[in-house]
Every structure is written in structure tokens, then in C-alpha cells.
């Protein structure tokens, strides 16, 4: 009987990428910047050791196919994602989140090519839920939509570097954004589950609460609101709805996934009154809608035509609203995050470690 050869992991791992030698750290930076491989900020040198550490953490061989980008037929492998993740500053423990976010972005309903090439200039908003937030130190409190912590900063940046380098989503190449927005450097947010009585976003979207999950959304820039002069849920949410109406008037009437970020101060008023995320979404769905004729008030009268009485809700259904508990403890602020192009791209939520192409278990 022939012996079965069992290879150790280090014998299987064989990186396929071309290598370059650089004399010092400055030479590395100049090589990557001059080749168009960065977002303009310095990168961490992606050495074989650093990339292999990411792959080992995720227990993936380098040639693991994460997906094939459907429009241009580009194969996305774990090795290439890991190289860009290292460049962005990711540690191995951050890499499974990058993998999951990319798997989610490659689902048909996300419409990745359109969302990343469009003149509309959206970014990919990444929302983290579940225990992995705590393992990574991802913070959903102070400065939640800004530079809140290392984990969300580097994960969000990795998403953009992967787009730049694996799909040529460079300004003026595949990325045809007219303006873009600062979230295109990094746009990652952790929900503050510990300080909220609400269902976490991933559970609201059908994932087990105990799982860690990533939600991706093709998203415009956040629009901040303020209302510290009431404790009534209807009045607080009216301010959010008004900002969504403003987006419907000034930007686009396509309905789709909007996100609203509710920090602790306003959240406590809503929770004290017994409002759940489902209640919030139902209220916002009713209030965040405009008549087409309102476009005439903002200089867009030419497209009202004979449809002035038509009503346009921000979401087709209440469950398209992503309600996220995050933000620092003080301040009557909140934010809405509008969709890139309404229902043309759908938000996708996936559990970290889930296989989207696996056969379902046989009954």
C-alpha cells in the first residue's frame, strides 16, 4: 500500500506574485507610488513573510479563488487580497474581515463594477458586527465615522487598495468619479453593540447574533444632523428623515439602502420610549419620501415633466434601512449615509468565515 504524502502548510504555501527588491524603506515607497499602486499615503512593505502570515491566519492557500469579478472576468485570489491588506496596515487578524468584505462585494446584487467605476463617486461602507469587533479593538464610540481606531482604519483602507490594484479602480482609469469623497480612503465602522439595547445590524439582517459579520454598502458621504432639543422619537427621527428627503431632492430619487447612524444621546431617548430598529425603519420609511414636483424647487424643474404628483420613498421597503448604533456618548448628533444609486446596488451582509458558494448540507 502506497504511503500518503501529507504536506506541511509551509510546503504548500507558494506565493505566485512577482517580487521586487528595494534598497530601503524610501525605495519601497517610491516603487509603489510611482507604479500607481497606492492611495497616495505611505504603505507597509508587503513582504512574503507578512503576506503568508495573513494567509495562515485565514487558513487559506494563496491561490484560493475568492471570486471572479463578473464584468471584466478578473480572478481575485487570497494572495492578492493579502498583499494589499498588508500594504494598508492590516495585521493577520484583520485579514478575514477583508476577505469577507470582498466576498460580499462580489455578490451580483452589489454591482461592484458599476459601484466602483461610476461618476457618482461612492465608497464602500463596511460595517462590522459580532465578537470580532472586540478581538480587533474596533471601536463604535467616539469619532465612529472618522479615525476611531486602528482596525477600522486599516480594514477600510485595504478595501480601497484592493480595488485600485486588482481591478484598476484608479482615478481616471476604471474609477470615473466626478468628485468621490473622503470615505474612499477608508470607510469602516463598528456597531456599538455593548451599549445598545437594539438588535445588532447583522442579526437584523438574518445572521446569527453570535457570529461575526460584515455588511458592505455602496455609499455616498455621511450627512450629519443635529437635534438636541427634544426627547420625542418622532421629532428625533423627523430630523433624520428630513436629511434623507434633502438627499432625494438634491441628489437622487432612486430608492435603496440608506444607513442611519444613531449615537448614544439620541439612541437613549429612542430606547427609553421603547422604539426598536424595526419601529425606526417603519417611521423613516413613511417620512423619508418626496413628490417629484419638489425637484422644481431645487433647480431640477426640467425633469419633473408631467409626473409632479409621483411620490418617491427613500426605501422601497422599511427593511432597506440599515440602522446602526454608533458614536460617542455625548452630542445630539446623527448621520445618514445615502446609497450610491438606490436599488441598483444592494447592501450585502455575510458572516465572517461563511462560504457563499458551498453546497448546502444534504438533508
Amino acid at each position: 500500500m502506497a504511503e500518503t504524502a501529507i504536506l506541511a502548510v509551509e510546503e504548500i504555501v507558494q506565493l505566485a506574485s512577482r517580487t521586487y527588491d528595494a534598497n530601503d524603506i524610501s525605495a519601497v515607497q517610491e516603487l509603489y507610488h510611482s507604479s500607481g499602486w497606492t492611495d497616495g499615503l505611505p504603505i507597509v512593505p508587503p513582504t512574503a513573510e507578512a503576506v503568508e502570515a495573513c494567509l495562515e491566519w485565514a487558513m487559506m492557500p494563496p491561490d484560493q479563488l475568492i471570486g471572479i469579478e463578473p464584468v471584466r472576468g478578473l480572478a481575485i485570489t487570497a494572495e492578492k487580497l493579502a498583499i494589499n491588506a498588508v500594504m494598508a496596515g492590516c495585521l493577520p487578524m484583520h485579514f478575514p474581515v477583508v476577505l469577507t468584505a470582498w466576498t460580499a462585494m462580489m455578490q451580483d446584487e452589489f454591482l461592484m463594477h458599476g459601484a466602483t467605476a461610476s461618476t457618482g463617486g461612492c465608497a464602500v461602507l463596511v460595517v462590522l458586527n459580532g465578537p470580532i469587533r472586540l478581538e480587533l479593538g474596533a471601536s463604535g464610540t467616539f469619532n465612529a465615522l472618522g479615525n476611531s481606531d486602528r482596525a477600522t482604519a486599516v480594514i477600510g483602507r485595504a478595501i480601497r487598495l484592493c480595488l485600485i490594484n486588482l481591478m484598476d479602480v484608479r482615478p481616471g482609469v476604471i474609477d470615473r468619479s466626478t468628485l468621490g469623497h473622503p470615505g474612499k480612503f477608508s470607510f469602516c465602522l463598528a456597531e456599538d453593540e455593548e451599549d445598545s439595547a437594539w438588535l445588532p445590524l447583522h442579526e437584523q439582517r438574518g445572521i446569527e447574533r453570535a457570529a461575526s459579520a460584515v455588511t458592505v454598502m455602496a455609499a455616498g458621504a455621511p450627512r450629519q444632523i443635529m437635534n438636541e432639543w427634544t426627547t420625542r422619537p418622532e421629532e428625533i427621527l423627523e430630523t433624520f428623515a428630513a436629511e434623507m428627503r434633502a438627499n432625494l431632492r438634491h441628489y437622487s430619487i432612486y430608492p435603496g439602502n440608506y444607513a442611519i447612524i444613531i449615537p448614544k444621546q439620541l439612541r437613549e431617548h429612542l430606547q427609553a420610549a421603547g422604539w426598536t430598529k424595526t419601529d425606526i425603519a417603519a417611521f423613516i420609511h413613511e417620512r423619508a419620501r418626496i413628490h417629484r414636483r419638489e425637484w422644481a424647487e431645487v433647480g431640477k424643474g426640467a425633469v419633473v415633466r408631467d409626473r409632479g404628483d409621483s411620490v418617491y420613498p427613500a426605501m422601497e421597503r422599511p427593511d432597506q434601512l440599515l440602522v446602526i448604533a454608533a458614536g460617542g456618548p455625548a452630542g445630539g448628533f446623527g448621520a445618514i449615509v445615502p446609497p450610491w444609486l438606490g436599488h441598483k446596488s444592494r447592501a450585502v451582509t455575510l458572516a465572517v468565515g461563511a462560504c457563499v458558494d458551498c453546497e448546502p448540507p444534504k438533508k
Partner: protein
Amino acid sequence: MTFRVLDPTAEKAPPAGKAAPRLASLEGKTIGFISNGKEGTKGFFRHLDRMLREEHGVAKVVSRTKSNYSAPADAGIVAEIKSWDAVVSGIGD
């Protein structure tokens, strides 16, 4: 300290499409237009339609518009392409 670093790009070019054989003449041909439906396409395709018929003797122009301007053309439109002699796919912004 020297660094040996890895190429972050796909390295492989995306699978390239192949150009259809060029037409010797547009005379009597059927030309399809695939528009992304944006405002800028309307005047452009109207003008191109007139030019092709009046100046190049094109027999027929078939205009189709994608249902989603940021996604690939709908399967029904792609299936029609076979019945055209040439196609112009236009992005308008």
C-alpha cells in the same frame, strides 16, 4: 535594510474581447445602438442615427437602452446583437 516586496496588482490582463470583423461599407447594413440611457446619449444617438442613414446609406438603425446604466447590457439586448451588422455602445454623461 533591503526589502523583497510583492506585486499588488492582478498581473494578468483581464480576458480580452475580440473585435468583430470590420465592415467594408455601411451601405444597406443594420446598425444597433446600445445606450446606457443617460441624458447625454439622447442627442448623440439622434445625430449618429441621422448621419448613418443620410451619409452612409445605412438601411436600418435599431436603438436599445440598458435598464441599468451602471450594469452590463440586459440579456435580451445581447441576444439581439447577432442580428445586427455592427453595434455602437455608447456611454453618455
